[in-house]
């Protein structure tokens, strides 16, 4: 069974009081991409995961985890 990727993007974003549009602007993607990553619909590339972590001031591991972990 494929492992599901969980993320705390929404929690981290709201902790910093950022809107989806603001975070999208920081990492240079569309709001649609932020939304689909937050909802677990889209699995981001390593590059985007690193950019998201940097924009939110946390590590990639803090942002993303595998369901079985």
């Amino acid at each position: 069974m494929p492992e599901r990727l969980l993320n705390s993007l929404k929690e981290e974003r709201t902790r910093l009081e950022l809107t989806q549009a603001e975070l999208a602007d920081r990492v240079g993607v569309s709001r649609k991409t932020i939304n689909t990553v937050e909802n677990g619909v889209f699995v981001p590339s390593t590059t985007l995961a690193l950019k998201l972590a940097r924009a939110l001031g946390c590590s990639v591991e803090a942002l993303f985890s595998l369901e079985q972990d």
Partner: protein
Amino acid sequence: MANHADLADRIAWGRARAATVMALVFVAAQIGSFPDDFPLNRPQTLHLAAWIVWAAALLFFLAAGGGLLRGPRMRALLNDETTIDHRRRAMALGFWGAIGTAALVYGLSFYEPISAREGARLIITFGIALALLRFGTLERKALKHA
């Protein structure tokens, strides 16, 4: 900065709707013109050229993704990771649609004489239309809650 995101969203919505509408119109036009066929003994250069240009334009729309005249930043927003993923998935479905249509044309040819031209037209039409429909659906779904 939100203006950039808003504009990108609006353009992406338009693109998603356009993809769906163009796919349906393309299929409807081909189905409508099918009884006419392109008989070998009648010059149909204009009709054939129009169809080929239309098909090529739709493929370009699917591959390029829009925002060509809006600068590199907007173009990047309109063709970011999710869009590239949607395009890839749409093209994969278009490929399978084309293969499926080719198999149907092959089967049909045992019962009904079908020219290579008709067959190619069917395969290309359904391949492109399926890809566009899938792209439009995926984009609309992703944009719904953004």
